[in-house]
């Protein structure tokens, strides 16, 4: 690091020996300058609001009762920790995130393995697979809610009627999907959108696999399963971790699907939706902020572990 700094010093201006400290500091600022706009922007737009959230979380502040605004101490936090809805929301968020990430990674891995072979129309199948990810999330959620899950004229029950007719069943089952399994309805719709994402990352990982080694193992008589277990899977590990991490970041925060498909009803309200409700419908700013602070603290704890994963990936990568 220092050697590079000295080199730039020499390159720009010959400095008298006494002023070298000043010159180095100036050179450091020249280095930092391009970074500053982005850094300052991020601190103002993302960190300052959190400070405000922290302050508001200790206040009595409900837009419906403007006269009662004031200091509340830990009241909001007490209400947050005793709120059954919020506790349920934590659980729902975990189920939703783990469910979607796990299922879409397993499916994505299977499909990536299928697409890693040469066959007629491979490009077409890949293109078809990507389509779900390119539908705007709200549009996708609406599509699932009304055009697929609808008990009267949705495609799922329509297909059941059609298959029933084919086999001569008079009254085929016509389940009300969203009412019968609300959380799974949301999970399925999200899995449909996120499997392509996992598939794309894992397929890229598979295609970066050193093929000569695999070929050598095959010549030595290793079975397909052995090759997969001891060569493909270890190679894919970092791609699996990357997919899981990025998928979790986005699905933990999911609002669109929950809002659209069930409107948070039937036990599907996750944390973002619940906080949105406390803030946007109950207008209880103090309690919403306290909930947000608790979620942020929880996220920081989980994210510390997640970031450790990324930084270990990152060390392998930056051996340049």
């Amino acid at each position, binding site marked *: 690091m220092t050697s*590079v700094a000295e080199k730039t010093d020499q390159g720009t201006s010959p400095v008298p020996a006494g002023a070298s400290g000043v010159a180095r500091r100036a050179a*450091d600022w020249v*280095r*930092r*300058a*391009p*970074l500053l*706009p982005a850094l300052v*922007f*991020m601190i103002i*737009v993302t960190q300052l*609001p959190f400070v*405000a959230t922290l302050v*508001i979380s200790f206040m009595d502040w409900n837009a419906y009762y403007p006269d009662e605004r004031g200091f509340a101490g830990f009241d909001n936090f007490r209400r947050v920790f005793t709120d059954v809805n919020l506790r349920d929301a934590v659980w729902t968020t975990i189920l939703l995130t783990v469910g979607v990430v796990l299922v879409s990674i397993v499916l994505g891995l299977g*499909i990536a393995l*299928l697409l890693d072979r040469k*066959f*007629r129309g491979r490009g*077409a*199948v*890949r293109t078809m697979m*990507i389509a*779900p990810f*390119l*539908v*705007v*999330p*709200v*549009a996708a959620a*609406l*599509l699932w809610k009304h*055009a697929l899950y609808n008990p009267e*004229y949705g*495609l799922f029950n*329509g297909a059941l009627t*059609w298959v029933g007719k084919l086999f001569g069943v008079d009254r085929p089952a016509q389940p009300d999907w969203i009412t019968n399994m609300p959380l799974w309805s949301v999970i399925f719709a999200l899995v*449909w959108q996120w*499997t392509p994402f996992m598939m794309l990352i894992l397929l*890229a990982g598979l295609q970066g696999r050193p093929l000569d080694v695999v*070929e050598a193992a*095959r*010549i030595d008589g290793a079975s397909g399963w052995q090759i997969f277990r001891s060569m493909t899977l270890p190679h894919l590990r970092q791609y699996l971790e990357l997919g899981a991490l*990025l998928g979790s970041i986005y699905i933990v*925060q999911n*609002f*669109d699907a929950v*809002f*659209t498909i069930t*409107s948070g009803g039937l036990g599907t309200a996750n944390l973002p939706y619940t*906080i*949105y409700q406390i803030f*946007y419908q109950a207008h209880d700013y103090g309690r919403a902020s306290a909930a*947000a602070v608790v*979620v*942020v603290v929880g996220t920081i704890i989980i*994210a510390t572990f*997640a*970031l450790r994963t990324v*930084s270990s*990936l990152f060390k392998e990568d930056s051996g340049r």
Partner: protein
Amino acid sequence: MTVNTDSAAAPAAAQKRKDRSGPWLSLLAWVIGILFVLPVAWMVLTSFHSEADAATNPPAVFAPLTFEGYREFFTGGASPWPPLLNSLTASVVSTALVLLLSFPAAYALSIKPVRKWTDVLFFFLSTKMLPVVAGLLPLYLFAQKAGLLDNIWLLIVFYTSMNLPIAVWMMRSFLSEVPVEMLEAASMDGASLTKTLRSVIAPVVMPGIAATALICFIFSWNELLFARVLTATVAETAPVFLTSFVTSQGLFLAQLCAAAFVVSLPVLVAGFAAQDKLVQGLSLGSVK
């Protein structure tokens, strides 16, 4: 060469084994691909059906095609054009801002790195992990005080902050591919910064910039939560416009599918046109 026949026979046998299951695996791939694209195809097909044909059970696949749904969507009620234009403005302007801010930042994190540049990089990523909903309330209160509610510029600022961390990560990974020798050679020749940027760095990172822009555009275009809270009638974006279909009753399926298709069209077109860029972008540039 003839000595090798023995070892060459083994892969040939394995090849034969593979060939037998091969067609079935290809068929499976096709079936799965069709299952995944089916809801999208169904959306497009339904959007060209009449409302009566769209609401049948079993589905009327071969019903006559019509533009009724589109006509109803564009001229039936509130016009979708202002929300679509708002979305376009917010996505394009915020993407441009993100590129303007992230390129120099990535430069200072890769080509001429500042001290502790990894810490800075992880600071950017950590902002993505904090729940956006926690920053929503103070932004809303600020906007209310400052009279910025229902103003597209507020969304632009927010979308810029939402995509900036991703862009910094991607740009850094693309910029770190610029060969050091070329940079040294350029500085040895006394090339100015602008000349180095234009003739050494730009050719290497242009595809990376395109990937970054694509991802930022898609994420801004898709965003719902902030747009819903911070905008009303004037600055409403296309996803917010779509939420009017959440609780609609009666025969509206064709119109809904037309709306969903129209709103998704820019993302579908951009994404299909740049499939490889999509992978690069989604993996924050770690998949090349």
